[in-house]
Every structure is written in C-alpha cells, then in structure tokens.
C-alpha cells in the first residue's frame, strides 16, 4: 500500500487508482466517478486547462482548489438557458410572469404550465429543467400541507422557502444525487404581508422586491430596478411585468412564446391564481404597443 503523501498534485498526475487499492478486501460498489478519473488522467495531460474545472467538476462532492463546487455552477447554467421568469412585490401583493418558449406549434396553449400553486396563499414559478421543477413544486406542496396539519395554520412564506431551499441544498450533498437543474421564484401572502423569495439550484434562498431568472434575467433586473414597486398596485404590476417580458424576448433566437402570469393580492382575496383573462389581454396589448413605440423611435 502506498503511503499517503501530503502534496497537492494537479489532476493529471494524481493517481486515484493507487489509493483505491488500499481498500481491497472491502466489498463495495466502485464509484464510477472515481474509476473514470483514474482512466482520464492520461487524456488530461494532453488537454489544455479550460476555465471550467477540469477534473474537479465530475462530482458534486468535489471542491475545486479555489473553493468552488462546479456541478452546482453547471446546474445554474441549465437555469440560465431557460425562458425568463420574473417576479415582483407590489404594495398590495405579488405578480409573477413567465416567458414560456413554445417548442412546437402542435402544443396546446395553456398546457405545460410553468407557474404552480403551492397552497392557497402561495405560488411558484419555475425556470430550468421542467421535470426537476415538478419535483420541487411537489415537495413544496407537501411541506405546506404537513405544516398546516401539524400547526393548524397556513405555512408562513418564509418558513416554506426555508424548507424548499434546504431540500434543494440536500441534493447537492451526495454523490449519488445530482443537483436540481431549476431555479424557483416563490411568491406568497401571509400574516406578514406579501413576500417574494427566490431559490437557486445551490439551495440559497433570499427575499426580494423583484427577481428574475432565465435567459433574459440581466435585462429583466435592469427593467425591474426602474420601477417604483412600493407605490405600484398589482393591477399596474401585471402590465409592467408583461411589458418587461415582451421587451426582453429575443425574436431572432427564439421564435414563439406564451406569456403565463399569476398574482396574489387583495383583489384575488389573497389567494394565488392565474391573472384573469381580460387583465392578461390588456397587459399583452399594452406590452405590444410599448414595443412598437420603442421600435418606432
């Protein structure tokens, strides 16, 4: 058995296969990641070091020498490739909107919903891998239900976001699980008023006035910062969110999209629901007009 040395070698020369020999006699499943690392070392010596963490990015349980977990960062990239999701907190409630990119003309409008109700008073808009998003929404629904059955009161939005965030984080701790490839904007209205939280694939959850994830998140954030949210009602907020989403939709890269919006406010009796059709139409028209005015300049 080779003695363990204390030196830190670059990936090319580090022989995992040697250390594995010391475990001989123990009948256990060989970690495919570690096995492949041993095979890859000869190839990596000829490769140039790219900015992606070569060798340190094969498992979510590996840190890079500069303290990053690359798998989590790659998961965030999956979110960045999806359609934009925007959420804002107005003075009387929350408005969330999704730029739902339509993959095929055969899809029924209104299907493949990206915004889900988690409880009467809370909803979630998902960006990233849709199947992963379904899991997170299911977990959030179950947490909200179980809180209410134990404590007899609707789950506070802060508590719900912490539970969902810790579940997302859980999946970044074990090598047999991959991180969730989706980010979530959670909006809710509880005893402490309307609240907006965003949960990233790393398991971080913060509270926001306005949040955006997906392709156009930088542009969306700039637009949101221009708004005076503390004076805006949700009705006005719906129009503003529609304008933002129409503005940052890239006609050249992605052809068609469907606008999906939801709100929780006094008008919706503090319940999470789809924005009523007439208001949605009004918002879409206003957004298209605003775009034309911009193009006309």
């Amino acid at each position, binding site marked *: 058995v080779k003695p363990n040395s204390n030196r830190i070698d670059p990936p090319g020369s580090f022989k995992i296969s040697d250390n594995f020999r010391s475990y001989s006699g123990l009948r256990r499943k060989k970690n495919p990641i570690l096995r492949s690392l041993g095979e890859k070392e000869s190839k990596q010596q000829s490769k140039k070091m790219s900015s992606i963490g070569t060798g340190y990015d094969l498992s979510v349980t590996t840190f890079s020498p500069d303290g990053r977990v690359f798998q989590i960062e790659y998961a965030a990239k999956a979110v960045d490739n999806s359609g934009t999701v925007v959420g804002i907190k107005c003075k009387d409630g929350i408005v969330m909107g999704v730029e739902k990119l339509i993959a095929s003309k055969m899809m029924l409008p209104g299907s493949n919903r990206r915004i889900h109700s988690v409880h009467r008073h809370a909803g979630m808009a998902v960006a990233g891998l849709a199947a992963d998003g379904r899991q997170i929404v299911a977990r959030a629904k179950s947490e909200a239900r179980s809180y209410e059955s*134990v*404590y*007899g*009161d609707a789950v*506070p939005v*802060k*508590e719900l976001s*912490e539970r969902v965030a810790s579940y997302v984080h859980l999946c970044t701790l074990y090598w047999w699980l991959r991180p969730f490839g989706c980010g979530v904007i959670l909006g809710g209205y509880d*005893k402490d008023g309307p609240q907006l939280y965003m949960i990233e694939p790393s398991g971080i959850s913060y509270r926001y006035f306005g949040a955006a994830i997906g392709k156009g998140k930088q542009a969306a954030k700039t637009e949101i910062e221009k708004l005076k949210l503390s004076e805006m009602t949700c009705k006005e907020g719906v129009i503003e969110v529609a304008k933002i989403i129409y503005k940052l939709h890239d006609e050249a890269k992605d052809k068609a999209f469907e606008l999906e919006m939801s709100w929780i406010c006094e008008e919706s009796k503090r319940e999470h629901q789809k924005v009523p059709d007439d208001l949605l139409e009004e918002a879409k028209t206003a957004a298209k007009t605003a775009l034309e005015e911009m193009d006309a300049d």
Partner: protein
Amino acid sequence: MDLNLDAPHSMGTTIIGVTYNGGVVLGADSRTSTGMYVANRASDKITQLTDNVYVCRSGSAADSQVVSDYVRYFLHQHTIQLGQPATVKVSANLIRMLAYNNKNMLQTGLIVGGWDKYEGGKIYGIPLGGTVVEQPFAIGGSGSSYLYGFFDQAWKENMTKEEAEQLVVKAVSLAIARDGASGGVVRTVIINSEGVTRNFYPGDKLQLWHEELEPQNSLLDILNAAGPEPMAI
C-alpha cells in the same frame, strides 16, 4: 370514608380563561387531590408554554403535566425555526394534536390562553375528546359546572383588565365555595402586549358567599368571647 392515598393525583379544579380588551386573564384554584386527601393545597395550575402563551390544566395532574411539557418543547423548536414568537393558535393546535391522538389514554381538559401580535388576546378551550374551540371565555374542571349560569349573566365583551380579573377571581371563589374538589388560593395570570403578570389571592382575602362562615382561629376564641349584653328592662 376511606382516604384512598393510592388514587392517582387529580386536579378536581376550577379553571377559567377570559379575553378582555387588549389581552387575556387566566385563573385557577389550587387544590390537587388524591381521592379525599388534598395532596397539594397551593398548586400552580397555570403553566407557561412560551413567553406569551400559558395553559390552565385540569383533570389528571400527570397527564396535563406531560402534555404541557411536550408542547413546550415543540413550541420552543418552532419558535427557533420561525424566528419569532409562536402564535396562540399554533400552541392550541399542538395541544389538540396530542389530546386527540391519545384520547384513549389521557384524561385532561386544558384552556390555552395568550397574546400574539397578529390576533391579540385569544382563548382556546380543549376539553376531554380533543376538540379545539376558540372562545371569548372558557371554563373547565369540576368546579366549572357551578359557573355556567354565572358567566351567562356576568360576561360582557370588551371589559377592561381590572374588570376581567375581578370577574375571574369572583368566579373561581364561587366555584371553590360549592365544589369539594376545588379549594385553596386563587391564582391569576394576565397576558397582554406588555407582558405577563401573575397575581395571588389567598383564601382569606376572598369574599364570603351565602352561608359561608367567618374564619375562626380556634374554639378558645369563642369561649373567651364576651358574653351577651344583659337585657335592659
């Protein structure tokens, strides 16, 4: 007449919880009996669950103590997770979960009362089967049978703190007068936005009711008392 000293400790009890304009007043007697023997004549039946929520215990002393202990523990964890004080509603629901799910084994009626910043002062009654009922006032224990008519007449909405406490003390002392399983002192706890105040009314400070005798120190006092005045003819 057998003193069954091996009988389980029971709090015959009178317990009361009353809301007023700004908070709640909880009141209780202080007798714990084992059969006919008074095991503790100065017990404290009003137990703290959190800084702002208290519970009045009646029925089996052991059962009510254990339930309170569990709920205090759960509420402590809940407060840490939430980052703010637990609400009275949540406290009442946790008690109810234990009371209902163990209804075959427990014999305890509880009155949960407290103050939180969302709902203000609230009283929840949790009688034997494990129902939970939010009420403007609640009475419980063996002595409460004698108070239903009294409260029907004397209760009113939006009392002041002093009126509410006087009502509670009067009611407990009336029940003590008629119920053999209630006695001792009257304890009250007032909970509002400013905090918690505990008060104590010893038996001899309470008002005497119909046919109740003045307390006498001993027979010697009667013998040494002055004789009747001679009649003036």
